């Protein structure tokens, strides 16, 4: 709690869909385990665990990750214990800040059933629909990667969630069209972007190493462009995801239009606390606050 006491207050606080966040940082889904929660203290304004699905998923066989310059390619395959086990263990994610839950289904009905299951749980402040994981195969992207199916899923989930805020997480491909469709369908905020489809090859073994999604600083300029373009196309908050590794990155995403910023892959190589401190120093240097920064550019 030391960090929060030191850095707290007006300066870092933001509001996202009526939810007060003490800092604009959120862990990106799938990049913060229960075991690592102890390390993050109170750096995050909200907690967002790995995507959960209706039934347990074993995930893909290894190798699942390959390092690339300034990033990595992963093909985890949404390994998770299924929504019921997930909810049994959810209290472990209670750090005294709002909890957002990421869900994914293979069909519209599965998305709706998941949202119905979460709608009445008072521990959950908002739900993020993972409409964009490139590692679950349905001929490439998930079935809901295009505007028409994204619209159908979001409309149905909006009803199922009753009053809980719904975030739609969008992939980079076709992001502006999907963002407009998602807003029309009733999304309360958009998370932009997920990993970018990528491939690594082991030349000496002449085999494919990992076919999955690229993340890390390598994708930051792509994500920044997506956040900037989407922020100008919709009137709902945008949550940035993609390549954030420094406090300056956080500032850049907020200037581009983000209300909150997710930290994913960088948390494997840095302490998120350092990123928050750098961001806080940036705000001091510029004589501004986090909420003033959003879309200031």
């Amino acid at each position, binding site marked *: 709690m030391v960090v929060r006491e030191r850095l707290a207050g007006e300066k870092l606080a933001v509001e996202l869909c009526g939810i007060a966040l003490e800092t604009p940082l959120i862990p990106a889904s799938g990049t913060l385990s229960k075991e690592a929660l102890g390390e993050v203290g109170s750096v995050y304004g909200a907690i967002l665990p790995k995507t959960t699905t209706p039934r347990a998923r074993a995930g893909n066989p*290894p*190798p699942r990750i390959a390092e690339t310059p300034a990033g990595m390619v*992963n093909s985890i395959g949404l*390994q998770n214990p299924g929504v019921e086990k997930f909810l049994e263990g959810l209290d472990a994610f209670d750090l005294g800040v709002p909890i957002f839950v990421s869900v994914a289904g293979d069909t519209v009905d599965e998305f709706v059933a998941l949202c119905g299951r979460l709608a009445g749980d008072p521990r959950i402040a908002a739900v993020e629909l993972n409409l964009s994981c490139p590692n679950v195969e349905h001929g490439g992207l998930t079935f809901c990667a295009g505007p028409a199916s994204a619209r159908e899923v979001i409309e149905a989930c909006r009803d199922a969630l009753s009053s809980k805020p719904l975030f739609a997480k969008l992939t980079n491909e076709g992001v502006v069209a999907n963002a407009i469709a998602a807003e029309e369908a009733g999304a309360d905020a958009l998370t932009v972007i997920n990993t970018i489809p990528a491939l690594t090859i082991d030349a000496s073994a002449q085999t494919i190493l990992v076919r999955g999604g690229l993340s890390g600083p390598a994708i930051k300029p792509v994500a920044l462009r997506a956040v900037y373009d989407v922020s100008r196309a919709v009137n709902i908050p945008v949550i940035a995801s993609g390549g954030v590794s420094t406090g300056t990155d956080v500032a850049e995403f907020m200037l581009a239009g983000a209300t909150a910023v997710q930290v994913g892959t960088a948390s494997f190589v840095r302490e998120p606390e350092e990123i928050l401190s750098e961001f806080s120093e940036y705000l001091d240097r510029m004589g501004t606050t986090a909420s003033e920064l959003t879309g200031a550019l």
Partner: protein
Amino acid sequence: MKFHGVKIEDREWIGGYTLIRYRWDGAIEPGQFAMARVAGYPVTFDPFLARPFSFYDHDGETASLLFEVRGRGTALLDDAPDRIEVSSPLGRGFRINGANGPVALLGGGIGVAPLKVLSRRLDALSVPHDVFLGFADARYAAVAGEFPGAKVATVDGSAGVQGTVLDAAPDLTRYTAVYACGPNPMLAAVKRAAGEDAFCQLSVEERMGCGNGSCNGCVVPVRDGGYVRSCIEGPVFDAEALAW
């Protein structure tokens, strides 16, 4: 993940391997590992991820890593000036069972790394143990000098017996416990040689992203179905729990 900048106290080249010793006064369990990398500002972008290494030795004031230069990350560590960055000890190490021994320790190539701390722990508990080490050739086998009494095999026969580590080891079934580290095919062979009922523990080697359980990248298949993370549930597993 938190990394600590540490000062390299000394560096030695033992045969084909590099040993780096740095200041570390925390506790270390045999079989635990650290994520290590060269320092950058604020991190290096290429290589981007830290690399996992078993603890080779520690004396309460310093800890050491023993590694083979394979690619970019290890080459940079080999050349690192006087500081590197390391995580705290990670993972679940070897479980020492209560039996009095004798116990067998098997290392394949750089799989020798965690056996030194384990051997020290067994000495402290007065558990008699035999060490068997397999290498590609005599150059790598030079590290066996750090394990007095170890029996050695080399693939090309240039040191010890010719063959794999199992050719240096007699009947493994006569040991009350078998501990092994090396490439996964070697571990599978040790598991078979130790027999169904053996108390056999294997330290596996998987690619790691985070080292703290967050990425689900380092998994191994388990007998009960599905995958578990080698950085949290491992890297040391009961042989019988693994699906290979």
